[in-house]
């Protein structure tokens, strides 16, 4: 897109898509914004269209807001750490020539195709269940006391479930990045006397930095809205209430649509701040 002409025709071409996306997003956003300034509790049949910033004040000052923010950060951070380190490890492993490479790669990608609700239920009932879970059998096999993951360390359990789902994505992106590293560069480093760890640290990791920032950006945006995994496992109990889940509880459990909407808007603003921040980092990384 170099000339004035091609630029303007490009704009016309993408206009329909932009229009649909805008309507798709703007209508719910405007409604949420509208409700967030209203006292709207359908069960009690209250509707007061304008109460100013009351909803925001009570949402932001409640103790559950700060704790949910902390939970969200812990959850997203934990998942990012597991998927990035695991993804790099798997990508390096899958890059090695081996028998049945194609099939192994498809198997590694498989978790990505399982719906969040399904995978959370599978983990909850098949692995984490105290009485019949596979982990319990494993613990018993080694003569240990079965561990109730979901009530003893619920946050970690959810992090594991979601990380399992997102690991394939990270692996796939990082694998393509690993494969694009020129083998001559690694050979040059080998001749320069760099042992494998130095080659990883000085050649492979800097080469992957771009892909890693992209993975972090995309995953963060999706992970901020984790819901199904919390819903089917802990229902937000035991310190697994994220910001998204708090909004859900305000709206549906407390039936306070006004308060929930205010929470929703706060979540949108925070997510945008994170997104802008991440975009800048990625942009900087993509430049050079």
């Amino acid at each position, binding site marked *: 897109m170099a000339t004035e002409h091609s630029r303007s025709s490009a704009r016309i071409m993408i206009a329909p898509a932009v229009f649909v996306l805008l309507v798709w997003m703007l209508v719910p956003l405007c409604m949420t914004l509208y409700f967030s300034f209203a006292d709207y509790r359908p069960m009690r049949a209250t509707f007061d269209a304008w109460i100013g910033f009351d909803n925001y004040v009570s949402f932001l000052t409640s103790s559950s807001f700060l704790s949910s923010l902390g939970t969200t950060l812990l959850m997203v951070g934990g998942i990012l750490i597991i998927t990035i380190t695991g993804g790099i490890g798997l990508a390096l492993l899958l890059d090695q020539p081996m028998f049945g490479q194609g099939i192994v790669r498809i198997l590694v990608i498989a978790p990505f195709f399982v719906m969040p609700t399904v995978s959370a239920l599978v983990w909850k009932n098949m692995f984490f269940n105290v009485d019949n879970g596979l982990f319990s059998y494993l613990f018993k096999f080694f003569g240990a006391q079965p561990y109730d993951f979901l009530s003893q360390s619920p946050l970690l359990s959810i992090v594991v479930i979601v990380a399992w789902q997102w690991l394939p994505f990270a692996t796939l992106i990082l694998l393509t990045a690993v494969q694009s590293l020129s083998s*001559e560069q690694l050979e040059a480093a080998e*001749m320069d*006397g760099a042992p494998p760890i130095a080659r990883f640290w000085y050649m492979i990791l800097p080469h992957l*930095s771009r892909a890693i920032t992209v993975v972090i950006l995309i995953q963060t945006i999706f992970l901020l809205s984790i819901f199904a995994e919390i819903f089917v496992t802990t229902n937000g109990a035991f310190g697994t209430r994220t910001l998204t889940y708090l909004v859900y509880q305000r709206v549906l459990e407390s039936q306070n649509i006004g308060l929930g909407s205010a929470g929703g808007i706060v979540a949108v603003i925070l997510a945008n701040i994170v997104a802008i921040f991440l975009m800048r980092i990625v942009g900087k990384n993509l430049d050079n």
Partner: protein
Amino acid sequence: MGRITLDKVQKKFRDVEVIPPLDLTVEDGEFVVFVGPSGCGKSTLLRLIAGLEDVSGGEIRIDGKPATDLPPAKRGLAMVFQSYALYPHMSVRKNIAFPMKMAGMDQAEQDRRIAKAAEALNLTDYLDRRPGQLSGGQRQRVAIGRAIVREPAAFLFDEPLSNLDAALRVGMRMEISELHSTLKTTMIYVTHDQVEAMTMADKIVVLRAGNIEQVGSPLELYRAPRNTFVAGFIGSPKMNLMHGAAAARHDATTIGIRPEHLDVVETGGTFTCKVGVSEHLGSDTFFHVHIPEMDEPMTVRAGGEVGLRHGDTIHLEPQADKIHRFDARGLRIA
């Protein structure tokens, strides 16, 4: 010191034998060029010496010590790759320092060697740039700089000039030759370009399909090619190889005459033919003529100002002592 000996070294990829068992000695301080057509196994042979590929058989010795099972880093050799293989996220300084850093050399010594190499390679002003901000020729020099700071026993070059344009290539050719005469370190240089081989080498190794066809100094190969392959490969433009009656007159299956050894004569001459396409280079003129003894046109070198036109009839006489004779197997008849 850098004396490299290959003893029955062989390389197979699965069942394909790329390098049949081969013996070769590279003397200390020699500039050896491996030359041959693309795909003949030059890079493979160089990588075997570097240790980037395992040999399928035979032994490699460096300075008399067995090196066959040594990892690349332990062989004390430095390699310059065709793609330069610079580290893109490091500055030029860090690129050059990398092998020394890996060797755990102290900082003062590193700085001294970097300064010396940068000075010799005209890189002093570019030390803080990234490789992506350099021209092809400068990247090439960084790759060489990274190799020389290690003070290796021998340098290995794999077609280092093939990504440069023609003018730069001539310049870099001379720089590498000059580097060799100052450092006096063994250099093994791989190329498919026989001009590079002729201009730079102390010793040329001509390879075909992994086999050594001939080893010798540039002039030995030019004067006495051992077979028709070497005869056709060394020299520019190519030697004219002809069969049939012309060869039979010299008791050979094939005879070869270089374009520069054919004289244009007034009358008589061995060949009488019509002038085809001419290439005027200023200093020389190469013209192509058709003779029945050859399938391809025969190339003849004449002076730059010779007044020959397309379609003129000329008489050609080869210089009697410059005719190369080959037998039915393509081997030289002494």
